[in-house]
């Protein structure tokens, strides 16, 4: 049998260790999933507060084939009519994107680490 005092010391030690190795809550948060919808030849609002590791679901509500293509080539999502596709944000920074078929359709992601 372990004496109570000893058990208490272990518990206290564990708590202290948890605090010491703890990292800010935000970084522990699970990756978020956002949706960007294309409608009437336009990209909808892009999420604020994007972080590397988050997911974006691109949804094409148009009757036309589109793409979501990064100007820096870090992603290139093909979006047939009424299709959707999910990608994981891999790169931080400001990433401009457009539709290769309709280059007037543009937007940009701002991604934190």
């Amino acid at each position, binding site marked *: 049998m372990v004496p109570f005092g000893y058990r208490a010391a272990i518990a206290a030690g564990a708590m202290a260790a948890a605090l010491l190795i703890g990292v800010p809550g935000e970084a522990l948060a699970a990756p978020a999933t956002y949706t960007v919808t294309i409608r*009437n*030849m*336009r990209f909808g609002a892009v999420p604020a507060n994007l972080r590397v590791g988050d997911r974006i679901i691109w949804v094409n509500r*148009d*009757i*036309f*084939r589109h793409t979501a293509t990064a100007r820096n080539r870090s992603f290139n999502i093909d979006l047939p*009519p009424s299709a959707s596709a999910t990608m994981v944000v891999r790169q931080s920074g400001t990433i401009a994107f457009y539709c290769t*078929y*309709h*280059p*007037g*359709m543009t937007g940009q992601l701002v991604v934190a680490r």
Partner: protein
Amino acid sequence: MLRKFTLAGAAAFFALSGAALSHDGPHPSDAQIAHIAYTAGQIDVAAGRQALAKSRNPAVRGFAEQMVRDHSAVNQQAVALVTRLGVTPEANPTSATLTAQADRQMRRLGALRRAAFDRAYIANEIAYHRTVNGALSGTLIPNAHNPELKSLLETGLTLFREHQAHAERIARRIR
């Protein structure tokens, strides 16, 4: 019905006169507007198919594929809309002029080969989209009464402006 349209031989037309789409006289009805818009779309689908049969230039072929795809999509939507609304598209002189000009243009382009065809096709697409876009913004959209028809025409205008810009970019590369 639009499904029964026969635009055999319809193709793109070069330097379509503004008069062809100016629609003199009373304002066009929704039934006439639907007919004109559909006819204009079918003409560009036919032009795209002609380009796919004749051109070997990857940029030109990519553009032509997109024209067939995008204009077919708009026209499928137009057919679905008028069917749902119970509107029977009405033939009119503007549509007839478009088709006649397209026939002439298809014959003209049909006699050209390789780079000469590519240049003429792209030049025609620029002129064609410029004219159709002018008609959409100046005549067809302002006169459309049904909100859904108006919305479809507006989406079409956004799309066709993209097509015009795309054709202009290709023209600079194949000069």
